[in-house]
């Protein structure tokens, strides 16, 4: 009998977003099915539904003819569905064997039977051919091996369905090869495998079928062998991405030099020098961990500077705290919106006036009329979707959250000269991304200098006027937009010096 997992009519709404709408497809045993889509397409929500983490509003999950409904992640596990998330869910201080058998530790006379535990674990590890000691605490393993432990855990439970959420993100090439071999083994054993990723290359390498999602909806279900990268991108984006960038209305008049950084060295970056003119959008490309964020934090006064100088409008500046930098007209939209940018459980209003409480005062109290006015201005300027100014930010979608931060730094309370955007489009849907690109260009037209950090190559080489590429804490090159190609930038980002 053929093994299969069938989803039909799955819908799930969060306030402000329809995360999934009527999604359905069928995955069969012995095959790897890729779930493909941009950030915000609904892949993670779908996995969370499969793992019993959240409940769908509507829809059916059928495994081998049996309809499943989960009240908890435990139910999903019992039904034979294991989801392996990006954040590994292991008990890091416990040994490999305890993790693999968590929930089913063999017991003899009420005492843990370590002998059996070790023997059984060894069996599984050998089947996978991995050089892992069952007794090592998981925290001493490499990220890749930790992931292998997760997979062995799923294997030990004899899960029929194993879903991977962006498994290769933290892995090196050799480690990816090990993972793919594992996945192929699982496939041979007839498991139903779901593979979420947006790395197209991998999808062609390891999957048999592809389901594309876009904005929470099912787009298509194709055989991997019968499609190609261009088609997939078109399915994912819904239109040619070229247009978004071609239609941007850019600023073409630069002013004086706004920022000059000379030989900046901190604990994380070395000898960084660059300059930025008013009205210019300067991109920073590089791999994750290249030191781009650290350069910006140093400029913003959030990290200490070991040596080097920073000049703003020709004058040497030294910021001891972010407050000094803000007072001088520098604004930072940090990399991690939710962790560093916003106070999630406070209102839009609070999040917008946050750095400028001094300027909305009517002694001894805050000037609530003024702060209301400023907030409404920002809501209108950026078209933030909300009924009132006191909606708490956590209830907004990612795109609207980012707009709140932009609204904060460009309000009439502040004279921002330099706007630093660190990964501003991370986790944001395609439509809002385009809006944010245009906002960046509009702000440049107003005479702001904008620094635009992004790990998405297409984005950074198409939005920025000039692109600086970093690797291992130093600048490895600089390219103008006109001459920038993904290959060129990538070569600099991965250059061996």
């Amino acid at each position, binding site marked *: 009998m053929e093994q299969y997992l069938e989803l039909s009519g799955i819908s799930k709404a969060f*306030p402000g977003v329809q995360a999934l709408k009527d999604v359905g497809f069928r995955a069969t045993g012995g095959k790897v099915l890729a779930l493909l889509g941009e950030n915000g397409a609904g892949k993670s929500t779908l996995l969370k539904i499969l793992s019993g983490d959240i409940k769908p509003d509507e829809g059916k999950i059928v495994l081998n003819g049996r309809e499943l409904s989960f009240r908890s992640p435990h139910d999903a596990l019992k039904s034979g569905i294991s989801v392996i998330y990006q954040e590994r869910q292991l008990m890091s201080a416990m040994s490999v064997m305890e993790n693999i058998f968590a929930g089913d530790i063999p017991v003899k006379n009420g005492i843990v039977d370590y002998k059996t535990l070790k023997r059984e674990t060894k069996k599984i590890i050998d089947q996978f051919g991995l050089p892992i000691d069952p007794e090592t605490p998981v925290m001493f393993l490499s990220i890749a091996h930790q992931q292998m432990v997760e997979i062995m855990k799923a294997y030990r439970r004899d899960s029929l369905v194993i879903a991977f959420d962006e498994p290769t993100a933290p892995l090196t090439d050799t480690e990816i090869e090990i993972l793919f071999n594992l996945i192929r083994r699982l496939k041979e054993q007839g498991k139903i495998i779901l593979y979420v990723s947006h790395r197209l290359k991998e999808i062609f390498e390891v999957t048999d079928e592809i389901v594309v999602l876009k904005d929470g909806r099912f787009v298509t279900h194709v055989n991997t062998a019968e499609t190609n990268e261009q088609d997939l991108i078109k399915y994912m984006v819904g239109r040619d991405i070229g247009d978004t960038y071609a239609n941007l209305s850019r600023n073409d008049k630069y002013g004086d030099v706004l920022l000059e950084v000379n030989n900046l060295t901190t604990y994380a970056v070395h000898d960084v020098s660059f300059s930025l003119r008013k009205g210019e959008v300067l991109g920073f490309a590089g791999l994750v961990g290249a030191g781009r964020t650290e350069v910006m934090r140093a400029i913003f006064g959030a990290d200490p500077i070991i040596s080097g100088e920073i000049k703003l409008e020709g004058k040497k500046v030294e910021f001891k705290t*972010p407050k000094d930098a803000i007072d001088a007209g520098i604004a930072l939209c940090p990399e991690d919106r939710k962790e560093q940018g916003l106070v999630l459980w406070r209102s839009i209003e609070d999040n917008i006036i946050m750095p400028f409480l001094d300027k909305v005062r009517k002694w001894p109290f805050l000037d609530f009329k003024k702060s209301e006015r400023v907030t409404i201005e920002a809501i209108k300027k950026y078209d933030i979707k909300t009924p009132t100014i006191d909606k708490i930010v956590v209830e907004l979608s990612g795109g609207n959250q980012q707009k709140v931060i932009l609204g904060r730094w460009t309000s009439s309370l502040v004279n921002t000269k330099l706007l630093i955007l660190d990964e501003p489009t991370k986790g944001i849907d395609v439509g809002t991304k385009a809006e944010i690109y245009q906002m960046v260009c509009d702000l440049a037209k107003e005479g702001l200098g904008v620094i635009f950090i992004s790990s998405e190559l297409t984005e950074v080489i198409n939005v920025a006027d000039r692109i600086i590429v970093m690797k291992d804490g130093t600048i490895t090159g600089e390219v103008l937009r006109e001459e920038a190609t993904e290959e060129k930038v990538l070569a600099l980002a991965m250059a061996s010096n």
Partner: protein
Amino acid sequence: MDNFTRISTFKKAIRSKAFPLLILFVIMIVLFTALAPLNDANFLTTRTFISILRDLSVPGFLAIGAGCLMVSGGIDLSQATVAAMTGVTIAVSVGWWNLPWYAAVIIALLIALCIGLVNAILVNELNMMPFIATMAMSTVTRAVMMLIATDQTGQMQGSINYNNPTLTLIGNYEIGGFLPATIIAMIIAFIFYGLLLSKTKFGRSVYLIGGNPMAARLAGINSKKTSYILFMNCSLMGGLAGLIYTSRVKQGSLSAMATDQFTGLTAAILGGISFGGGSGGMGGAFIGLLVIKTFNKGMTIIGASSYVTNVLSGALLLAALSFDYYSQRRQRKRIGA
């Protein structure tokens, strides 16, 4: 065209966590009024409420200090010890060393402020967890208090009597012969700190720091300064509570107010100030206290044994916390956070 204005204050009040407590308060009044005659007593009298409010003033000051600190994400477990220490210091200064009462009060409150300062230094400069740092400080304070309470013969006194009419008046003065001045002081303090938290720049930064310290720092909010102020204020409020208590009972006692610490914290949590920080306010904390004290008083009046009262008030707290936890979880689930 949308106008995006705020939701009304009335709607906000109804949605706040303190609102169910207010309903509970009303239910309690009705119940106790109905049950009191069975014990040949009367619940619904001015005297009952004045007595409830008077009982509330000492934990009230504690809850103000602890509540403000908790909104910023901190916690102070040394506050009640500081309160007892203040009382003992005042009693010893006046009773044994014959200092004038005002000098004793100033010295005692300065000591309280210093303990707050040390707490703030431990947390902000040495990056200790507030929970651990203040618990350690509580132990240290208790030891110092015992030293202070050791008399010339080398005997430690559990309670120190003093005789000073002015000092005694602070906690016992009754306006018009029936309304204790401490009630008025406490209500003024609640209003003052309530306005401070909800309407001022300082208050707003307290909420933002409590909500997300990292984001607050990157938005230029000086969280260190705020934390120092809040820790010192928390101790100072402990000191004021200690002053009022010592004045009222006319002695300094080593074991005073030990349970009030938790009454204060409990009230703050009941009223919507969460352990994580960033939410709740003074109004909620006050209503929280009011519910706890009304319950205790009502149980006494209807003649329930103190054991039953303790069990039931514990159950009340558990019920409130589970309700809080449940509604928070539902909210998180709803928005997928």
